[in-house]
Every structure is written in C-alpha cells, then in structure tokens.
C-alpha cells in the first residue's frame, strides 16, 4: 500500500465547505441560544450552566467554519489505480478505503447548487455493499474521473 494516494481535491472545496458550514451554523446557534435562554429565564440556572449551550454552539460553529475545512482538505486524497480506487480522509480518525474497480457497479457525478456556483462536482461510485464518494472535484476533473472509473470497470468486466 502506497503511503498516500496521489491526488488532492480542488482547493475551492475549502470555500464550499466553509459556506455550507456557515449555513449549518445558523440553526445550531439558534438552538444553542434558545437552550441558553431557556436555562436562564425558565429554569434559572447559574451563569456557569446557562452559558454552556450557546458557548458550545459558538465553539462548534467557529471550529466547523474556520478549522475543519482546511484540515479535512489537507487530509483528503484519492487515486484511481488500474485495479482499485484508493481514498484517504478524516481529521482525527484517518480512514483509508480501497475499493476494487471490479466491484464497482456504476458511477455518478452529482453537484448541488453551491457546488455548481464554484464549478465543483462529486463523484459517487456504488458497490453491492454501498456507495463511496470523492467530493469537491472541479467539474471537468470529476467527469474525467467518472469516465475513467467507468472505463476501467468495463475493462475488468471483459476479463
């Protein structure tokens, strides 16, 4: 097994993740604020307790907006080898996944509105035991990767 897969995701991935985490942070902060308000005015908990939810939410929001996208992008690697797809991801838990091309049933590319805005696309490939994805590749590269996997899968098929 090689030390690390060779390819990185598109650098714009960090921006996309940041924006989508900002969007997620809104309801999170809202829930934290409500919990704090509830603890303070209804339950009348001490300062140390009622500040906890909102501070926790704030911490998570800051972490997910400013820290994790960079770390995650740095860790994310992929490589399409002649016989396998090799993936590496994870911030704290580093996970390395290998999927033989012969097991891949079909491949998709997907992109959401935010991804489209940045010209990014996600490659999803399916095996009989579930799906794996390579997120945030620039659209032309994603199409290339998809076709590459499809072609290699077909080649294996003919063996």
């Amino acid at each position, binding site marked *: *097994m090689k030390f690390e897969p060779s390819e990185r995701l598109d650098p714009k991935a960090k921006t996309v993740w940041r924006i989508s985490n900002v969007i997620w942070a809104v309801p999170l902060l809202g829930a934290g604020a409500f919990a704090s308000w509830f603890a303070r005015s209804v339950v009348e908990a001490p300062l140390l307790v009622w500040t906890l939810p909102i501070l926790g939410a704030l911490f998570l929001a800051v972490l997910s907006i400013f820290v994790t996208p960079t770390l995650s992008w740095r860790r994310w690697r992929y490589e399409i080898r002649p*016989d*396998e797809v090799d993936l590496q991801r*994870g911030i*704290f*838990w*580093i*996970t*390395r*996944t*290998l*999927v*033989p*091309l*012969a*097991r891949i*049933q079909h491949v998709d590319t997907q992109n959401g509105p935010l991804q489209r805005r940045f010209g990014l696309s996600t490659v999803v490939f399916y*095996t*009989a*035991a*579930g799906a*794996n994805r390579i997120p945030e590749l620039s659209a032309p590269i994603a199409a290339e990767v998809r076709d590459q996997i499809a072609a290699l899968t077909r080649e*294996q*098929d003919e*063996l």
Partner: protein
Amino acid sequence: MNYEPEEMRPGQPKGEPDGDPHRRTSDGETPRSEPSNEKPESPEPNRTESEHFESPSDSRSESDESGVSERLEAEEGRDPDDEPENPKSNGGADDETKRRETENPERKDEPEEMKANSGSETPGSETPGSPGSETPGSPGSETPGSEVPRRLHPTSMLFEALKTARSWASAAAIPGIAALFGGGLSVWVIALVLIGVSVLLVVSAVWGFLSWRATSYWVSGGAFHLRSGVLQKNERTIPLDHVQSVDTVQGFIQRVIGSVSPLKVVEVRIETAGGAATETDASLSAVVRDDAASLRREVEGARREATGDEEGEEVGPTVLRRLTRRELLIAGATSGQIGAAAAIIGVGSQFFDDFIDNFFSRNFVEGIFETIAPYAFLAVMLIVFAVGLFAWFLAIAGTVVAYSGFVISRSADGKYLNIKRGLIRRYEATIPISRIQAVRVTEGLLRQPFGLAMLRVESAGYGGGTEDVGVSTTLFPLIPKGQIRAFLEETAPEFAVEPPLTPLPRRAARRYIFRAAAPWLVIFAVVGTFFFTSGLSAAIGPLFIGFINVPLPPTVYFAVPAAFVLLLAAFYGWAAYRAAGWAISEDCFVSRSRTLARTTAIAPRRRLQSRNMSRSPLQRRVRLATLRTRVASGTGGATFEVVDMESSSAREVIERLGPKGGESGGRESGVG
C-alpha cells in the same frame, strides 16, 4: 392459518378478501350481478368490476379446534346455490360434512355429493359440473392453446375461508377481549359474540367457496396463467422462461389433512426470477400432489424446450444435514434469546395487571403487597428468578417453533442450497451457492463452553428486484465446532477454512478494557451524584431487611454494585480482546470478534466490496488500527471489523486482500 411461507408478501393481488365489513354486502351481490362468473365451465372474467383487494395482512397462528369448525363451514359453503341470500342454512349438515371430509378424498364426486347433502338450497340455474382438478371445464373464449383451465382442489375453499376468518378474527380479537374484560360477561355479550362468530364463519365459508370457484390456472402459449378474484377479476400471466422455481409447500393444515385421510394436498408456489416489481409470484393454495408434480414437469419441461435453460430444479436433492430433536432442544436451551422472551413477558404483564385489577379486590391486592413489603429484596430476587426461568422456557419454545425439522439439502445440480424449517409454518429458503458472500460462525455465550455454534450466511441479490433480495439467514442452527469445516466443505466449499488466528498485540488489551468500562464510569458518576444528593441513599437501607440484617452505611449500597458492574465490564473487555483475531487463509479473510457471542466471519477475498483501515489519534500513538471489510448482504452490506490490530499488519492485510493480492481477481464474484 400459517400455511403460507414467510417470504410471501402481503399485497398479492389474489382477490383475497380482507377484513373490510363492506365486503360482506358486495359478496352477496356478486352472484346476481355476474351470473356468468359462477359457472365453472366458463371462466370468462368480468373485468368491469373495479374493486380493489388486499390480502389479509395478518398471520396469526390459531388453535386446532377453530380450524376444524371453520373447515366444516367451508365445506358447507361449497354448494354453489347456497349463496349469501340465505346464509342461515349453514347450520344443518355439519356431521355429514365432517364424515365426507374424512372418508371421501375422491375429488370428482364431491360437488354432487355436496349438492345432495346440503341442507337448504334454492335450486340454481346450473350445477357446478365437475370442477375437480383433473376434469377441466371447456377453455375460456380467450384461452388459446391446447391447455385447458384447471381448478384448484376443493380443499382450497377451506384455506380461503380460513384466511378470511383469520383476518376478521384478528381484527376483532383485541377490542373483543378488551370488551370482555371491561364489561364483564353478560348474556347479551355472549350472545353478541356467538352471533359475531357465526356470521364470521358463514361469511368466510361463502367467500372460500366463491374464491375457489373464481380461481383457475393453466399452461399455454409458453406461459403460466392464473385467474383469480371474486369481485375483481385478475388474470396473471407468467412467461415460463421467467419461472425460477415451482415449489410445493405442505403447510400445517395440508399436513393435517394428509394425516387423517389419504388425500395429499400441497400448496404450489411459482416463483419468478425477473425481479420486476410488476411480476409477482403465483401461489395455488391447494393442489393434489400428483397434479402439482405434473404441473411442475409441464412448466419446467416447456421452459427447457423454450430456453434451453440449464438451471434445473432440484430433481434429486441431497440432504446434507438434519437437526435432530435432541439438538433442537439443546439449541433452544442455549439460544440466549432470554432477553427477547423477557420483553414479551413484560408486554404480557400489562395484561396481567389489568386482569388483577378486574378480578381481585383492591384490598386483597394491597394486603398482599403489605405482606411482601418487608421482604422486598427477596421478593424481587424471586420474581426475577421466576421470570428468567419462564423466559428460558419461552426461548426454548421459540426455537422449537422456528427450527423444528430443520433440513438443509443441496440441489441435484449442486448450485442451490435449500433450507426447510419450522413447526407450525414450514419456512423454505433457496440460496444460490454462488451468491453466498460470507459465513458467520456464532458461538453464543451459553454455547461456547459446550463447543457448539450456529452458522449463518450472508448472500447477495441480483440487485434491483423486490423478489430477489439477498438474505442473511441461518445455515444451520446448532453444530459442534469440530464439524463445521466438514459441513462447510459440503455446503459452501469456498468457506471451508479454519486457520489459526493471529491474536491482537498485548497493548490492545488496555484499550479493549477501557472501552468496555468507560460507559459505566460515566453512568455511575451520574447515578452516584443523584444517589447521594437526593434522599435515596437514606431510603435504600430498609429495603434490604430480611436479606441483610446488619445496618450498613449507604455508600456500600452504591459502591458494591458499582464495583461489581465495573469489574464485569472490565472482564467483558478482556474477553473481547481475547476473542479478537484475524487470519488470511486460502484467499479467505477470517476475522473474529465478540459482542456477547463470539463470532467468526469468513469472507473470500473476491467477495470483498471494500476494505478500509482507520486510526484515531490515540491508536496512531500506539501504532494500532481498526480494519474493516465489507461484503454485500441483502440489499446493503455487512461489515466485519478487527479493532486495534497491529497497524503494519492492517496495511499488509489490506494489500493482500486487494485485486493484485492473488492470481484470481475479477468479476466472477457474482455480485454484479
């Protein structure tokens, strides 16, 4: 009645009755509005009817007695002229029908006899003719080919009637029982129940007859045709080359009939392989065994001619292993399903509470409680013990019902495994050997000391089809460990490996123990806070009077159980560490782990859908890794993992299990 195999799904458009009260009225109208449908000679369906049916969703077992009485009613309902216009006529000829049923298995004569015997009938426009399965009526106008429609055996009425009665009865059972307990027994209630029951019996009998008369099947033009439905006529056509198997199933009633008379009736199920959701299977509830055999020959013969298909059905299956009665009881006693059984008891106790409330005076109950109270601890221990014992017996009974008569056989062509099991309902599963993805050897907590294990298989479907999903099913419920390899050699030789496992490095033990104990530390921290801050610590002492007579400080009551549980958890972690291991042997990846039971998973390299290895920061520090492999199973997948193995070994294993790890990689894995 549970003669339907488990895998039969509800919702088959068979024109079966459901529990809807409106059916009764439409039922009565049918003969008037569609007289042509009543003639067996002309099975011309009237497709203008647009009522929709659902099959009874419920399948509850029922007692023998009810089976008999409903059978009689079904017999009564057989007369074509005894229509719902005068349902009260069903009271009369019970004895005669019973005698007929047992002494006269001769099918052809029955309709005439029925006519002679039936109590009160309005003379109909025609007699049923000879609808026995051997003497078909003239083919319907739109039936091409030489084959003529055939009827099911008249006992099919019985099955249809039972189905109806069952769905009604189960719908009424719970409110009925509640009403009984709530309102008490009065003459009116009893009368009402009796009236309800008799109406139910009459209606189901009539319905059974009608649906028998509406059902016919034939093979022609390279397809199997099934026409059915009382109100909504339904004709199903299954091309013969889509037929995967023609199975005969002998349900409980069919077996009872077979044992009291020379009549051998079976249920015939025609299963399709297509997987298209629109194409359901066909099920014929009662066919004489010889007819079933000839139908099978017909279908399979025609199919082979048509397609040159190589997949023959089990011509002469080889029985590989049977579960003996002794093994069955051992399996039950060691099944470890006491937890599930205890849950059932818990639900049952709700009813028990209601029962006590209704039938004993409050003073009496309170008196009992006051007597017990000083010995609460002892009483609780006793109750726990009693419940445990009861649950154990329940677990044994459950196993006996599920696995009684377990037989595994291999088809003549060696491509399929066939599993039959079940006491009341015979369950049958056919597994293509080439689709088995992994084998699990499970040594339950109570079985491991005796060297016993259960075998399960994960198998994959073709994907997409509703009918052809893979299964995770029991390959054999109880087998001595020493015989597993030989057994697998015969059933699924690909999986017959038993390599010595590589244990985990010693530094993993600490992590296992900590993982097992950590949740309990948190729980005891929370519980402890609550215990000492609330008044509970002061109140707990008196509960133990009768068990411990020396007053103890409250801390003891918390610390002793907490220490005990923590020790137990630590021991469990240690045991899980000891059980864990892995090996690669003959291209198979073998991994073992323990939750409560020790489970060994065997998965060939070419079946692995993906491998992954994951390391947390703490694992990285001690150079350990968690290895996971996934195989296809059912509609999704199953994961086998080895937690905390040597990081370098994990890397190596992943490499060796890859496509280049051996010479035989490729697509033949069968999961495409």
